[in-house]
């Protein structure tokens, strides 16, 4: 009995690995078509990803915002809500957090949690409008959140250039005033160094790592240990069954949507509070869309998202390596991550059918 349970687990874990391997094979084939031998391609990837502690640490650093973005999307997906608006939600969430960091004067032990909470509130508020439109008026969230991404970008651009611009600060790009030192995220590199992992000083393993770990745990606990999470998963599995069972579907979808927005608000933490120390219109865009892919590959589970966000960070790094050492363009990484989703969906489907058949046999 125990053995069959773990057999299913192994099968389930195996399928994404197969998908990843298949897409790497495709990458090598493409590289060969461009004229690069597989050995050279692999070597370029290796040098930029696994070759030393610095590269490895960089991958983990890159994975932090990706993890939060994936977690945000996964949270909504679990309730069958397609939050394509993580992008806009982290723009707004980050701005609200930054404002709390700029204009409030508090001791660090209050200021730090406050900017985190403010970011979450900002993200949740930006998600609240499409969420209400969906629940009250049946407007599909894919359409409204995409529109809200554009509105968020325009709004942030206007605010940073206009009312909130930090004139007098010496900068080439429009940005806000500087965030108070009490709200800046310090690095945790010395913790890792203390246990013998040598993380170079230029790599950002900062407080946002703690936020990511805490959020990952909270989401997992909510989904798999709390009845609200049970209802979220039930709604995501079947609206009709949920309604029949007396689950208040709209309330559940609203909750999941807002939680997703709140998580989305955290995506910019690292860049704003650890790296830049100001909010600018130039903060990295596109993480919200990466989050969709990460959530899909991670099977919308917090644990899966840990692996898929690291995988994505790995791919990003690998892309830089390819760019630098080979004739393969960086953009190939987008092709490969797309293929990877495809392959993983296929291998997942195959293994889950196989597992279902095994279970039926067991039940028969």
């Amino acid at each position, binding site marked *: 009995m125990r053995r069959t349970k773990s057999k299913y687990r192994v099968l389930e874990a195996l399928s994404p690995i197969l998908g990843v391997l298949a897409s790497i094979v495709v990458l090598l084939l493409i590289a060969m078509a461009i004229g690069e031998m597989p050995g050279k391609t692999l070597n370029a990837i290796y040098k930029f990803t696994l070759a030393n502690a610095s590269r490895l640490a960089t991958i983990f650093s890159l994975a932090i915002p990706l993890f939060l973005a994936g977690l945000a999307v996964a949270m909504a997906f679990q309730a069958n809500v397609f939050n394509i608006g993580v992008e806009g939600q982290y723009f707004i969430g980050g701005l609200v957090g930054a404002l709390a960091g700029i204009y409030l004067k508090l001791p660090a032990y209050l200021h730090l949690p406050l900017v985190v909470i403010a970011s979450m509130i900002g993200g949740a508020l930006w998600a609240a409008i499409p969420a209400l439109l969906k629940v009250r008026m049946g407007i599909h969230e894919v359409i409204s959140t995409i529109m809200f991404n554009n509105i968020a970008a325009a709004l942030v651009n206007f605010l940073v250039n206009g009312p909130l611009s930090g004139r007098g600060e010496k900068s080439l790009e429009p940005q806000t005033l500087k965030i108070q030192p009490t709200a800046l995220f310090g690095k945790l590199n010395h913790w890792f160094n203390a246990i013998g992992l040598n993380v170079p000083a230029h790599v950002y393993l900062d407080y946002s790592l703690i936020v990511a770990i805490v959020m990952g745990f909270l989401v997992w606990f909510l989904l798999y240990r709390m009845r609200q999470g049970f209802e979220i998963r039930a709604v995501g599995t079947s609206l009709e*069954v949920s309604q029949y069972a007396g689950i208040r579907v709209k309330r559940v979808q609203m909750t999941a949507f807002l939680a997703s927005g709140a998580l989305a608000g955290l995506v910019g933490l690292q860049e704003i509070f650890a790296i830049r120390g100001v909010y600018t219109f130039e903060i990295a865009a596109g993480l919200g869309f990466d989050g969709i892919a990460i959530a899909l590959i991670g099977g919308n589970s917090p644990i899966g998202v840990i692996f898929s966000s690291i995988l994505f960070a790995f791919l990003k790094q690998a892309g830089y390596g390819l760019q630098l050492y080979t004739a393969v363009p960086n953009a190939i990484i987008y092709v490969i991550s797309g293929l990877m989703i495809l392959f993983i969906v296929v291998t997942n489907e195959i293994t889950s059918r196989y597992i279902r*058949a095994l279970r039926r046999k*067991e039940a028969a």
Partner: protein
Amino acid sequence: MTLLKMDGITKVFPGVRANDQVTFDLAPGEIHALVGENGAGKTTLMKILYGLYRPDAGTIRLRDEAVSIKNPRDAIARGIGMVHQHFMLVPPFTVLENIILGKESQTAGVLRLEEPAREIAEIMTRNGLPVDLSARVEDLPVGLQQRVEILKVLYRGAEVLVFDEPTAVLTPQEVVELFKTFRMMRDQGKGLIFISHKLDEVLEIADRITVIRRGQVVKTLQRAEASKPLIAELMVGKPVFLHVEKAPPSPGKVILELKGLRQRSPRGNLVLEDLSLQVHAGEIYGLAGVEGNGQSELVRAITEQVRLESGDVALEGVSVLSWDVRTRRDRGIGHIPEDRHRYGLLLPFSLAENLVLGRHHRSPFVRGSVVDSAKVRSYARESIASFDIRTPSELTPANALSGGNQQKVIVAREMRFDPILLVASQPTRGVDVGATEFIYQQLVAARSRGKAVLLVSADLDEVLSLSDRIGVIFKGRIIREFAQGEATKEQVGLCMTGERQSA
């Protein structure tokens, strides 16, 4: 000459022998019934015939010619048609569009509709299957949707027709009509494969009967040598008694009262028209009627919040109209839904989760907001044991179980929540004989514990054998009530067609 011969068909799914050396044949102008419990392998065999599965071993011959059927299109081209149990229709399309779908013809890119419409109209009259071609399928009751399915197959000129439990949704009169159609098709030299759980029907219509159990053919019987007990015994491997043992009724106070319910469909026609009825404690009230006469709407008015034009639904004298589903469940309304796949179970979820669904938010399954999974699991193990659910464990997902066992999960859940009122909608649809018997016992047990049971069923035998009182619903009204014993099958059946004064 044989029309169809399937020989030594074997199909193995990872670890399961769904079909094991199955031999089955069909002559032109023959109705050959295929019977067996759920999961016996009938559906697999038919999916092989229809090209949905490839057999691992065995041959298929059509008119003495070996064929290999690669996909359904192949099957259709060779004159094999299938009327599925779960309809394969596009709901927002009209009847006509659904029938021609996949066989459309066009003139300069414009869909030709008139010729097919004439042709279909002719098929309709020839086979006694009238349907409004311009109606949207989603607006049709289930019974009419099935006619569309049959028309689809006939329009494609099928010679071998497979009917997968076609009578499950029909009234006795409709079954009579369907069987007329069957005989007409038989007389035209077509071969019919008839899958059914209803042995009376099988005995009435079939020329030969093949019984399958656990993927193997137990026996093929000629009509003359077959009898109901014999088939039932061959099916389950042991004698089953479908007679329901029941103490005389001792109805108590009124539990459910429907007063003058009036409701219109989105299209504006009345679906419930001043409908009133009462169900007492310790009573099974059977609602008989042709599918689509307001049964679903009536059930919905009891179990969830709907917009009514007028009328009231009261539970123990208190109006429930302002209560949502959760409140209704909390106050003691249990519900076995008519479509278990669509409403009853979270298929990928574990049995444990499914067995508490609907009460998962209450003690003892949660403490605060945290699920007490040890409680949930131990509760589930009790349910599995006392309702004889065949499963390796309570953590097995619901989609790994057979249909009969899935239905037992729902029955176990709703029974163990101990409702004051149980609304049981088609509780044994598509369920094998063994599970059916068990579900009957459970409904009777609920009655003897003083519960009010509203039984809605398209199976008239079921209504007649279980109910203390029977209400016949026709066009959204209860047109007549019978006490048990005063109703015969013929009377109730006639009444279901709208005939108030039965002979």
